[in-house]
């Protein structure tokens, strides 16, 4: 029975991989473009999912790190003429350093106060991105960011960039999975469910929370750099508080504790507005209503609703037999 299950799982994985590899060639260019965004949002959402699902922390500052990654890539490649990899590295180092320095004091807050602290951070960063136009180009932005070049293979089409972004996304998902599965993951869950008990078992709550926050910032910055190389133009409008809220919705809609749930959330965030926009200007209202419906009707996110649906099917199948 176990081997049968294993075989079935392997089959599912093979099918999923085949669909994933064939997808960019089967769909029109604008859909491939959205799939690239789904990958980028998955990376950014993963960090928030780790904080929300495993530490109980609402992070409303991800647009800050997303912006830092994007501006680092833009500045290093366009203004300095350095190779693209430097942009990724500079963004990651600055984001992680900032997350560490700011995370240390802010993460002492709990609950809503922490949510507000991160929201304030996002508001500050968004104002600074706007004011420091010598660095960010302000509202005019920085254009002409080159496409990524992988060993002479230019990723200039959505279908090519798709593979690169998703391989990075899978690597991040694997890293997140390992983190959750590790000793740190156990400590995280202990901390989320009862911080007093965890502290009594000599779990260093402060440094653990800070570490996850730094990982979250790293994912955010990585996603930002990928975004900059995809759209080749960055400006302040992409890194506002609204964007931070959108990022938070990804794990919430999909289900914060589930890593596949993050992908589902990212698909929801990228595809639903696009589908609804065919209905005209009313689409933003419908998106808001769809979000309310998900929150009210599916409190554990889409993945949670799916799990319960499957559990019900299994229960029914069992009673039939």
């Amino acid at each position, binding site marked *: 029975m176990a081997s049968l299950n294993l075989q079935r799982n392997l089959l599912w994985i093979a099918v999923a991989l085949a669909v994933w590899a064939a997808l960019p060639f089967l769909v029109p260019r604008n859909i491939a473009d959205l799939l690239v965004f789904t990958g980028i949002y998955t990376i950014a959402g993963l960090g928030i999912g780790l904080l929300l699902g495993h530490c109980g922390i609402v992070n409303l500052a991800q647009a800050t790190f997303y912006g830092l990654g994007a501006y680092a890539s833009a500045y290093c490649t366009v203004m300095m003429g350095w190779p693209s990899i430097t942009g990724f590295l500079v963004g990651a180092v600055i984001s992680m350093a900032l997350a560490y320095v700011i995370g240390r004091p802010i993460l002492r*807050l709990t609950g*809503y106060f922490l949510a507000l602290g991160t*929201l304030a951070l996002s508001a500050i960063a968004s104002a600074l991105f706007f004011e420091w136009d010598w660095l960010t180009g302000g509202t005019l932005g920085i254009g002409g960011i080159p496409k990524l070049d992988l060993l002479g293979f230019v990723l200039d089409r959505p279908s090519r960039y798709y593979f690169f972004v998703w391989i990075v996304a899978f690597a991040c998902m694997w890293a997140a999975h390992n983190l959750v599965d590790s000793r740190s993951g156990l400590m995280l869950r202990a901390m989320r469910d009862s911080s007093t008990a965890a502290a009594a078992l000599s779990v260093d709550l402060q440094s653990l929370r800070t570490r996850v926050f730094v990982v979250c910032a790293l994912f955010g910055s990585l996603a930002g750099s990928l975004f900059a190389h995809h759209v080749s133009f960055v400006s302040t409008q992409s890194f506002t508080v609204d964007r931070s809220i959108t990022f938070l919705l990804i794990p919430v809609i999909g289900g914060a504790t589930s890593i596949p749930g993050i992908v589902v959330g990212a698909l929801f965030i990228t595809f639903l507005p696009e589908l609804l926009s065919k209905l005209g200007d009313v689409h933003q209202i419908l998106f*808001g209503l769809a979000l309310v419906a998900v929150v009210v009707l599916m409190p554990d996110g889409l993945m949670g609703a799916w799990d319960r649906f499957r559990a019900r099917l299994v229960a029914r199948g069992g009673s039939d037999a």
Partner: protein
Amino acid sequence: MTLSLILQAIFAGVTNGIVYALVGMGLSAIFKGSRVINAMQGEFAVIGAMTTVLLLTKSGWPYPAAIAGGALAGALVGAFIEVAFVRYMALKNASEDSFLLLTIGLALTLSASVLFFIGRDGHLLPPIGGEGVVLVLDAVIQLHALWLVAIGIGATLALRAFFHRTTVGLSMMAASIDADGAATTGINVGRMRTYTFVLGGLLGALGGILVTPLISVDYTLGLNLTLKGFAAAVLGGLTNPLGAAVGGVTLGLVESLAIIGISSSYKDVVAFSVLIVIMILMPNGILGRAGRRGG
């Protein structure tokens, strides 16, 4: 830096601060009564102000009646949200995060609705008390700002009296402190929660109506006011609506005095940095009574 400049800044700070205070008091009343962080509190201000604008310009109502209509619209939307969504989710024991997300979703819906039905344009209301100005030591103060301050202080005192003197207010306090105990003494806890949202909607709408002669109202105003109102409420200790009044005025003063020292474009940077520092250093709010732990 002259005295009149400082005076001008202080007065502008108090004026803005009272608007933040009204939004924050509504937010804090709702949190106290239902443990819901209302991320659409600023949208109540937009609803109140927009309804007043429409009643005044499209339906030709007299100004005081239009203001009453706008405030009523805020209260009705508040009641609707409690009855339609919060009640159902509370029955299902929804987590605090999902209430926060519900209100974020509602805020997105409302701001998109304003954009769709009313458009991008900003709207202004005529100043209450006429266009006149008052000179205090060379500082120019609009007559409207004086009215705003007076109404804001009046609303704060009325709220205090409501919570301490009236049966409904005391029942709301009881229901929020100990729901089971309140239910035992015959208080309808669910209805008290509805009243809490009515109160929150009313205060938010009032803040929006009072600020609209100074800042034009459009579909983006809600988020900004929510942020400032939330900050005001947290500074005051979150569960204390009157603390939110103190928090709002503090925030307004910090913002406007920062403009004297630094460039005006860094207003939000200073306001939010001060907010973070106060949250970390004064974990019980400026008044230091209610607990800081948020959830």
